[in-house]
C-alpha cells in the first residue's frame, strides 16, 4: 500500500514546483534576496549617513534649519579654534597612552593566562567582565571612585597609608583629569586585548618552544623570536580595532568629565557631540567628526595590509 501511494507522489513532485520555488532556486535571484537586507540596512544607515556627514561638514546646517553650502568655512573656523586643537591633541595623546597601556598590560595578562592554571575558564570569564558591562555604567563607578571628597583612593593614601596629606585631585584639574580618563580606558580595554591575544597565543605550536628549549634559548629569546612574531598578525588586527575605537571614544569622557574641567579633556567625538547636538551647530559638529576620518583611513589601511601579509605568510587561499 505504501508503495502505491508514495510512487505517484514522487513522480509528481517536480510538477508542483511552481514559479516561486523555481525563482528561489535560481542563484542570481537568491544572491540578491540574501544580500538585500544586510546591504540595504548598511547602505541606508551607514554609507548614506557617512556621505551626508561629509556633505553637512561643508554646510552651515543647524537644528531645525537646513543649511547652505559654505565650502571650507567650517574647517577654516576649526583651524583657528583652540578647543579643536586641544581636542586633537588630547585624542592623539589619549589614544597613544591608552593603547600602549592596554597592550602592555593585556599582553602580560595573556601570557599569564597562557600558563596551566586551575579554574582557567572561570578566570577568563571574570576577566572579561569590565568589557561586557555597559561602559557608561562602569564609567559612573569610576566617577565615584574619582570623587574629590569621598574617593576611596584618597582615603587609602591619606588616612590609611599616610602617604599624602590632601585628597587626590582626580578630575578637578586638567592633567590629572586627562590621566584619570586614560586609566579608566586602560582598565576597560585590558580584557579585550588579553582574551584576543590569549586566543592568538594558543594557536602557537608547542613544538616551536620545544625546539627552542633544546637549542638552549632563554625565556626572553623565546618570547622575542617565537611568541612575538607569531602573535604579530593578530596583534596588528586587535591594535587597529583598539586604536580606532579609542580614538573615537565618547562614552568614558562624556560620562566622567563631559570634556571638563575647562574643556581640557574633550576628545574629538565629545566636542562634535557638544557642538552638534546640544549646541545645535550640526554643520560644525559634522566637520569635527569628519576631521577624524583621515586618521581612521590610516588605521584601516594598516589593518588591511596586516591581513594581507598574514594570508601571504600562511599560504592561505584568498577567501
Amino acid at each position, binding site marked *: 500500500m505504501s508503495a502505491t501511494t508514495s510512487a505517484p507522489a514522487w513522480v509528481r513532485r517536480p510538477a508542483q514546483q511552481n514559479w516561486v520555488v523555481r525563482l528561489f532556486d535560481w*542563484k542570481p535571484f537568491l544572491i540578491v534576496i540574501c544580500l538585500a537586507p544586510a546591504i540595504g540596512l548598511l547602505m541606508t544607515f551607514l554609507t548614506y549617513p557617512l556621505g551626508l556627514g561629509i556633505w553637512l561638514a561643508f554646510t552651515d546646517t543647524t537644528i531645525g534649519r537646513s543649511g547652505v553650502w559654505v565650502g571650507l568655512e567650517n574647517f577654516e573656523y576649526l583651524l583657528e579654534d583652540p578647543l579643536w586643537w586641544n581636542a586633537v591633541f588630547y585624542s592623539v595623546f589619549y589614544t597613544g597612552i591608552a593603547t600602549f597601556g592596554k597592550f602592555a598590560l593585556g599582553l602580560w595578562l595573556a601570557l599569564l593566562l597562557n*600558563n596551566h592554571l586551575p579554574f582557567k575558564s572561570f578566570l577568563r570569564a571574570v576577566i572579561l567582565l569590565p568589557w561586557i558591562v*555597559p561602559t*557608561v*555604567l562602569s564609567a559612573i563607578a569610576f566617577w565615584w571612585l574619582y570623587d574629590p571628597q569621598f574617593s576611596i583612593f584618597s582615603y587609602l593614601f591619606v588616612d590609611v597609608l599616610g602617604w599624602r596629606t590632601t585628597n587626590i585631585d582626580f578630575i578637578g584639574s586638567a592633567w590629572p583629569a586627562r590621566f584619570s580618563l586614560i586609566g579608566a580606558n586602560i582598565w576597560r580595554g585590558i580584557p579585550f586585548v588579553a*582574551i584576543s591575544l590569549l586566543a592568538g597565543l*594558543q594557536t602557537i605550536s608547542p613544538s616551536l618552544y620545544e625546539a627552542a628549549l633544546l637549542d638552549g634559548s632563554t625565556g626572553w629569546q623565546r618570547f622575542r623570536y617565537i611568541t612575538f612574531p607569531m602573535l604579530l598578525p593578530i596583534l596588528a588586527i586587535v591594535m587597529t580595532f583598539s586604536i580606532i575605537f579609542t580614538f573615537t571614544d565618547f562614552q568614558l569622557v562624556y560620562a566622567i568629565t563631559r570634556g571638563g574641567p575647562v574643556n581640557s579633556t574633550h576628545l574629538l567625538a565629545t566636542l562634535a557631540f557638544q557642538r552638534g547636538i546640544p549646541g545645535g551647530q550640526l554643520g560644525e559638529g559634522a566637520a569635527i567628526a569628519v576631521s577624524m576620518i583621515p586618521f581612521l583611513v590610516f588605521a584601516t589601511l594598516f589593518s588591511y595590509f596586516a591581513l594581507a601579509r598574514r594570508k601571504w605568510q600562511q599560504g592561505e587561499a584568498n577567501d
Partner: protein
Amino acid sequence: MSDAASLTTAPVPQASNAATAQPETMSWDSRSRRMVVLWLPLACFVIILLFPFYWMAITAFKPNAELYDYKTYNPFLIGSPTLAHIRLLLFETSYPRWLTTTMTVAVASTFLSLFASTLAAYAIQRLRFRGSQYVGLAIYLAYLVPPSILFIPLATMVFQLGLFDTPFALILTYPTFLIPFCTWLLIGYFKSIPYELEECALIDGATRVQILTKITLPLAVPGLISAGIFSFTLSWNEFIYALAFIQSSEKKTVPVAILTELVTGDVYQWGALMAGSLLGSLPVAIFYSFFVDYYVSSLTGAVKE
C-alpha cells in the same frame, strides 16, 4: 588550552635552563618563583579589574550615613545593609520603563541583524559568486566606521524620517554596527560546515532554501548563539545613538537614563547612581555568565577571521 597543558608537561631541561625559563616550563622546586611571577600579578590583575564592581555593589547597599563617613565605618564593608537606594530607583524613577525599553531595543535589533547577516553570510560563503569576497571585505570595512562619526548625520536622518524619540530610531540604527560583526562571525562559522552536506542535499533534490533552513542553519546554531549574544550585549551597551536620538525621559535606555536622569543638581546621589549602575549591569552580566564560552569564542573567532 590543550596546547598550554601539553606545554607544561613537555620535557623540561635541567636546572640551568629552568631558572631562566618561562613559568610554564619551570621545574617543581621553584614553586615560590611561580608564586611571584604568576600568581601575584594575576591576583593584582583580578583585583584591579573587579574592584570597581565591588565598589559599585557595596555602595548600592550602604546607607547614606556610612557612605560619606569613612572614619567611623570601615569603607570596604557594609555595617547595616539597606535597600533604600534600590527602592528609590525602582519606585521613584522610571527605571522599570527604561529597563523594558532597553530590553525591547536590544532584542529587536539583535533579531533584525541576525536575520540580515545570516542571509548575507550564507550568500557570501555558500552561494559563491563573482566578487563575493569583495562584498565580504566591504562589510568588514563597515565595521571599522565608528558610531562617533555617524551620529550627527544619522540624527538629521532620524529627524526627517520622523523616528526621532521613538525606539525605532535605535532598532534601525544599531544593526549598522551589529551586521558587520555578525556577518563576519557567521562567514567564519559557515566555512567550518562541510560543503559536502549541501551537495548531498542538492543531489537529493532539495531546493536552496530547504538547504539553508534544514541543513546549514541547524548546524550553525552555536554560531548564531554567539552572534546573538554578542549583538545583545553590544546593543545593551550602546550609548551615543541612544543619547542623541531619544529625548523624552521615559523612552531612554538604561545607560543613558542613569547618566542623564539620575545625575541631578550638585549633590550626586551616589547610592542611587551605583544601584542603577549595578542593576543596569546585572542583566547583561547574568546573560553573559550563561553563555561565557560562546561569548569568548565569538570574540576570539571574530578577531581571528
